[in-house]
């Protein structure tokens, strides 16, 4: 964007109006400051929802946006704990819901599994037992005392 220096009296109409509005707002805030306190509301969140919300006095420290909170009060969350995605305990009701994550480790896992199991003939001896009958490890004792 091209920016040129201009004398104040040559400001376009829209820009002039914005300046006026800002000046009025500052005047109102000064009045409010005299009558009460200006509080700032802050919150932290991620895509699962709001993690914490609160208000307090906020002081801007520099041009990079660093702030200091001389006073902070956490506000109660009214959502139900555990409503976050996958029951993570976040107050997900307050924030945008994240849909199924296609890159999640188990996204392509089959939903059900029958292991290919089949009924066995009643005369068969279980494979694991027939193997063990020929070689018994020291730690295992098979007993069938009938």
């Amino acid at each position, binding site marked *: 964007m091209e920016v040129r220096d201009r004398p104040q009296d040559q400001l376009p109409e829209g820009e002039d109006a914005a300046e006026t509005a800002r000046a009025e707002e500052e005047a109102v805030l000064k009045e409010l400051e005299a009558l009460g306190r200006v509080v700032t509301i802050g919150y932290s969140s991620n895509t699962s929802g709001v993690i914490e919300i609160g208000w307090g006095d906020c002081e801007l420290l520099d041009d990079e946006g660093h702030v200091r909170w001389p006073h902070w009060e956490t506000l109660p969350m009214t959502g139900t704990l555990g409503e976050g995605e996958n029951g993570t305990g976040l107050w997900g009701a307050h924030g945008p819901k994240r849909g199924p994550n296609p890159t999640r480790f188990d996204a*392509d896992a089959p939903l059900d599994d029958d292991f290919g199991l089949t*009924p066995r003939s009643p005369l068969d001896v279980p494979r694991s037992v027939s193997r063990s009958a020929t070689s018994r490890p020291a730690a295992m004792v098979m007993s069938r005392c009938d």
Partner: protein
Amino acid sequence: MTDTSNPEIGQLQLLGIDETAATAVSGAGFEPARLTQARRLAGVTKKTVADSLGVSPVAVGQWEAGTHPPRPDHITGLAEALNVPAACLAVGRPYARLEASAAHFRSLRRTPAIQRAKAIAFTEQVWELTYALEKRIQLPAVDLPGFSAGEITSGAMPSDPVNAAQELRRRWGLGTGRISQLVRTMEHHGLIVTLVPFAGTATATVDAFSTSHLPRPIVVLTPDRADDVYRHRFTAAHELGHLVLHGDTAPGDTQQEKEADQFAAELLTPAAVITPLLPTRMDFKILDRLSQEWGVAVESLVYRCREVGTISEPAYRRAFQRLAQLRKLNLFQPEPVTGSPGENPLLLRRAFDLAEKNGLTLPQLADELKVKLPRLRLLLGVDDPRPRLTLV
């Protein structure tokens, strides 16, 4: 021949049924090892049993040693004290005894002896259930390198944990990518995996353990880790590492625990694939994404960063401090295993479902195993379908 017609086991006991069973069990029909198993399952000492029956601990010791059989009234008392059917103490059922020295406990030092004994007895019972189902249903063949008939032959796999994990991936056809369902994969290769609260309130002190000294390898995962699916998967991989690496060595060595951890890390996140993806400076946003994609905890990835040298030792320590702070702010909260069906054991339940379709009922199976119905439901990991009555 086992009588499978008694549907009363585990339900309302009519007067006289257990007394009759007690008479049948006494004398030559009494199996001392079954008393030891039932006592261990109950998590009580010989003295506790003796006190509840009004006999001396020496008498209970003699019963368990088989030098003197208990009288019928003592059989009844034992069944009541240990909350088992009297027929449970009888001879005649297949029994695979597992020595405590044959199981790898994740937290051996933290696990009290009485809880270890309970865990071992539970594992024996899991095998008995497996055997009962396997008589009816063809389960997947055991496919664990070197395993045969309750033994691991050394030399079948590389002894180095990293190479062993790579070799297992190759043999199981897992490629080099993420493992979308580790527990299910283990079950498909014939391993029995359980995740039930068999130790009650003491579950946290037992932790996970595994054994390759039964006809099928058994991995016992405990629900205290099931609130975090990533931790749960790492634990399952850790136990798999013990089965592959330490089948023929005595458990309890801290070096073995380290090797099982190295095996688990390489199995879940092969270094050759994960290293180029790891951030070169601590970037939790990237680690969070990798954590979700690979199904491992952020901590595990931070550890991996240090292992492969992308971060320094001080940065590694700072990362854990920062992670602890972020967790306090509800970030990186664990996700429960219930959200990942492939990490919940299913094989035994599916085997029972099929057996049930072919005529087997829960009461019949409970009678065959000589356990009460609630116990069988616990072993199978199924809920009691009946509504719970609460007196208010």
